[in-house]
């Protein structure tokens, strides 16, 4: 077999050269006014962003900050949807808002296609991934996921208090995505670090962040080589062999897509599972009803996804534009808050309430438009199975220490410490 020399370069070949892009001043500290100085990285937002978003939606529906080199935060469903649909004015070149803007030449592919891609490249790159993530395809992972959830519950035996975020929720997506990509399951703890490096620590110096990102890509490249040596039936081998425009993929597209699947698949589902368990732990009526009526779970799950939507995305403004009453400048960030959209009273009755039998629920937890979460069917399977197994095995549980619950910082929101009394 011919050697695949696409991956012959060394990952660290950029060496000490500065990575091109625009760095902005790092501004941290308490927010003075959320309408003019918002920051999704401050503890007040992490602890409870919803009152802030509700207040902004009333008095300043497209909030502004000078932090991060300039950013906007729309909180109305209508505005979030309009930006999600408008790929002509808003680029996905970088979807994590930080103090570093990658160079414009990175568009339309971006660093982690297809989430970071714009049309027309986006469509082709996404088409490659879609068949691997249909409802039918991910259903094949369900028996193993269910067995794994049971083994996690088995491991809690004999304990009265457990950390449901750390001991249960986080392990499920890690195992599922490692299996799909064909990575060793024992590397799971490393994936956690990669995710933290990319999604949290946004206000670290950009060069620190770049260094952390290169650790991830070193790992991915090693996995690519392992799969070149020993091809197998998994997503990594699939991406290595996939063709776009009649040619095999550029190595950066292969590792970029692998990075996306690894990073985007973990924190998100972990957060959704954890937030759902958090809600049920503090709402005995809902918990008892779901235990008594397991058939309601698919409906309840959609409500958890609406009201505790874990994912916020970002866009970059392509050119100066006057948009819905504000003057946006080229390269301004947009913090695209699907969680805020999901609580807009103009779109949802009882928007701030958790209604577990809500039948009409046109929420945007998985995004809207061409970037609809490619893993949404996988995420729904994981969330459903995780909750089914938990409720079956541990029907009675409660928050052990409401003050001890901690939440992640940044664009993916979910509980990171969730002490539950189960015995």
């Amino acid at each position, binding site marked *: 077999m011919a050697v695949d020399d696409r991956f012959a370069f060394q990952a660290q070949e950029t060496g000490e050269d500065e990575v091109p892009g625009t760095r902005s001043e790092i501004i941290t500290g308490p927010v003075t006014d959320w309408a003019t100085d918002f920051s999704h990285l401050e503890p007040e937002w992490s602890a409870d962003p919803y009152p802030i978003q509700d207040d902004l939606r009333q008095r300043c529906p497209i909030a502004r900050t000078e932090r991060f080199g300039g950013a906007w935060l729309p909180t109305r469903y209508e505005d979030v949807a309009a930006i999600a649909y408008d790929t002509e004015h808003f680029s996905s070149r970088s979807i994590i808002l930080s103090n570093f803007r990658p160079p414009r030449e990175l568009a339309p592919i971006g660093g982690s296609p297809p989430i970071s891609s714009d049309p027309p490249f986006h469509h082709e790159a996404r088409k490659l991934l879609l068949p691997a993530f*249909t409802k*039918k395809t991910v259903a094949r992972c369900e028996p193993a996921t269910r067995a794994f959830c049971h083994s996690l519950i088995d491991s809690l035996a004999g304990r009265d208090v457990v950390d449901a975020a750390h001991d249960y929720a986080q392990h499920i997506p890690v195992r599922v995505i490692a299996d799909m990509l064909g990575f060793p399951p024992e590397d799971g703890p490393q994936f956690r670090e990669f995710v933290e490096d990319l999604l949290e620590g946004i206000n670290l110096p950009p060069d620190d962040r770049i260094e952390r990102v290169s650790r991830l890509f070193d790992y991915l490249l090693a996995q690519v080589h392992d799969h070149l040596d020993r091809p197998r039936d998994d997503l990594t081998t699939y991406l290595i062999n996939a063709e776009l425009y009649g040619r095999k993929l550029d190595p950066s597209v292969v590792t970029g897509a692998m990075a996306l699947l690894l990073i985007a698949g973990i924190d998100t589902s972990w957060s959704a599972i954890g937030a759902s368990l958090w809600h049920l732990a503090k709402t005995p009526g809902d918990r008892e009803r779901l235990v008594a009526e397991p058939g309601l779970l698919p409906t309840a799950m959609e409500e958890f996804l609406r009201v505790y939507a874990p994912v916020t995305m970002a866009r970059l403004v392509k050119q100066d534009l006057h948009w819905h009453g504000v003057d946006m400048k080229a390269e301004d960030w947009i913090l695209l808050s699907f969680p805020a959209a999901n609580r807009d009273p103009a779109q949802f009755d009882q928007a701030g309430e958790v209604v577990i039998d809500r039948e009409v629920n046109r929420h945007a937890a998985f995004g809207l*438009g061409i970037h609809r979460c490619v893993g949404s069917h996988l995420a729904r399977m994981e969330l459903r199975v995780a909750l089914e197994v938990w409720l079956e095995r541990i029907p009675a549980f409660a928050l052990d220490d409401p003050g001890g619950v901690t939440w992640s910082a940044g664009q993916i929101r979910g509980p990171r410490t969730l002490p539950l009394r189960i015995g």
Partner: protein
Amino acid sequence: MKVQINPGLCQGHGRCYDLAPGLFRDDDEGYGQVLSDGAVPPEAERDARLAALNCPERAVELLEER
């Protein structure tokens, strides 16, 4: 009643084939497709409405006949 999917709007969220598997299915990329000719038997009208009302992209269209 008939249902149809606007393929220009569908993004493959799959709410229609989740909620009304008797009326919709997914294609190989996860996009929704209408089964048969889209005619909705009276007992499936509630499912059809749920599918339309839950589609995040408003891609599921109901054609009501009188």
